[in-house]
């Protein structure tokens, strides 16, 4: 897909631009990415990776439950609490699939949407970390 390299560059560029004079406009664009990422995450990922109980009352949703077993407390099982998940890392997992998580096709999850989800998870996980330090 042709858009992929472009979005990655755009993201890198966006981080630099945040320091520049155009910082304010950039902030708005970042907030928009986070909002888009949150919506997409809630629709497409949270039914397996959410923080809440399973939809049938099980303790955890299946993605969260599997990651709890995988990491045994070394990393938080809910992706929204997990720091350091870059767009590239997420992309590698969701395009290849991982254990019982099947891969996602570009028609259901575009590269730009993966970037948005990464932006959202960065914000949600720092908020979670700040919360747990208090």
């Amino acid at each position, binding site marked *: 897909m042709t858009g992929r390299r472009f979005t990655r560059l755009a993201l890198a560029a966006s981080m630099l631009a945040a320091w520049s004079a155009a910082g304010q406009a950039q902030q708005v664009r970042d907030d928009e990415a986070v909002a888009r990422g949150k919506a997409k995450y809630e629709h497409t990922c949270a039914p397996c990776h959410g923080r809440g109980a399973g939809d049938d*009352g099980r303790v955890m949703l299946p993605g969260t439950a599997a990651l709890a077993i995988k990491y045994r407390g070394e990393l938080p099982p809910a992706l929204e609490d997990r720091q350091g998940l870059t767009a590239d890392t997420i992309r590698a997992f969701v395009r290849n699939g991982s254990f019982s998580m099947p891969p996602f096709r570009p028609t259901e999850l575009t590269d730009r949407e993966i970037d948005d989800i990464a932006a959202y998870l960065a914000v949600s996980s720092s908020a979670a970390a700040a919360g747990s330090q208090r």
Partner: protein
Amino acid sequence: MAILPPGVDAGRFAAAIRRFEEIVGPEWVFTSDEDLHPYRDHFSYLKDQPNEPIPSAAVGPDRVEQVQDIVRAANEFRIPLYAISTGKNFAYGGPAPNVRGSVTVDLKRMNRVLEVDDKRHFALVEPGVSYIDLYDYIQERGLKVWIDTPDPGWGSPVGNALDHGIGYTLGFYRDHFGAHCGMEVVLPNGELMRTGMGAMPSAKTWQEYRHGYGPDPAGLFAQGNFGIVTKMGFRLMPQPEHWRNGLITVPKRRDLIPLIETVNYMTDLFMIGEPWYGSPLRQLMGNTEFREAAGRFDEEEMDRQAAAARLHSWQVELQFYGSERTTLANWEYAKELVARAVPQARFTDGESLPVPLTKEQIHETTGPYPTNMRRNVTQGVPGLGIWYMTGRSEMNPNAWDETHVGLFSAVPRSGEGVLEAQQVFARIARDLEIPSFNNALGTPVNWYQFTFLMGAGFGIPRDYTPEGKKRAADILRRILEENAKHGYGDYRAPPILQDDVADQYSFNDHVLRRFHETLKNAIDPNGVVSPGRGGIWPAAYSSFRGALRG
């Protein structure tokens, strides 16, 4: 690893790809290994084998006209297509095609909810609309209708119905194909057809009168390959005001017969939602003496041990939709009917809740009795919690179910039928020398209102090496064969088993398949639409029959 469509050279393939790019735009044509990876079956028995059905490309149209142009181009370049809607057909092949090298037509981007009417109770949707999408659409607008969702909510009304999928509310709606009303199809020559009242240009009843006039070909498009469906209507259940459940148990093995007869009566009077059968005796399976008696199907001994453990042999959980009072009256009537048939039956009231249930009520798993019911789906609320079945668990912390597959056969809807199927399944397991679990306590699923499906308790070896997977697939084929000898037919199958299942519907020298293939060759002379799907092979690809067996 470039894969080409069968019989197509690189030059012709490149020209076809250019045409597809003109039709949908280059960003929606996928040819790299990386982009095509998610078009393979994540649970494949043939992963990385030379005959794994991997597409050569995928195309993502966003409008009906584009689908028509893709089909026309496929005819011109002689390229086999494979259409998917949401492509989540896991346990039945995932998004993967029947023919290696097909071009997958991925309809996910056609994801518009075209209409939901909560006075006349129907929806009209495009193929890419998932159950979760449709549910959200209805909730956001506060419409007073329910969807009937399968367990995983990321599939689609269109894709699920086209593989005869099922759900969990009232009987009529649980049969997703049965509850469809009107479809729009791109035929193999690129023409657009509408079924039912959709064939009358000015009709305002497309989603209300399914038959239209004359033979209704709609059935050809489910588990078949006669066209690409681009719209489908579905009847929707009005949101009821109240939901109630209750549990019935009966003491003896043979009590299953009058129990099922009575529940069938209620089902066919449209009095209850899906009944969930089970056996309280499963808790005795850890006990050697009981397990051995169950292994021998020694009914007297099983009854004796059940009585000693003060357990009943069978249970069924009933559900009622309506008002507080009508659901109560129906539950009382259900008790009366069962007590007449089995005087020793016991009854436990479940819960009685106004609809919509709160999140806490949907999550409630500590009701008055233990249940396996997943309450969210009985309320038409989609989710993905069921995915736990395929993943790591405390018992298997470093493994996942890499070859998860569905195998459910239609057995007669009677107690005698169920008790016989249990013995047949146990015998098959013995003959194939594979472990047999709980077969003497096996109960049917009543997903389809008028059908019992039973999944046998077989232990298919979990050896995920290529040889292990091949052995497992061979076992599945032998189970299918043995089942068919007893008249038990699979309702659905992944591409690796579709030829085998279709083979068993062989009355009068396979006249049904010959009929399908005569039609197929007539309307799809180049065989471009999903060749092999449902075991229906057009002449152009007939040499591929059974290619996924090897």
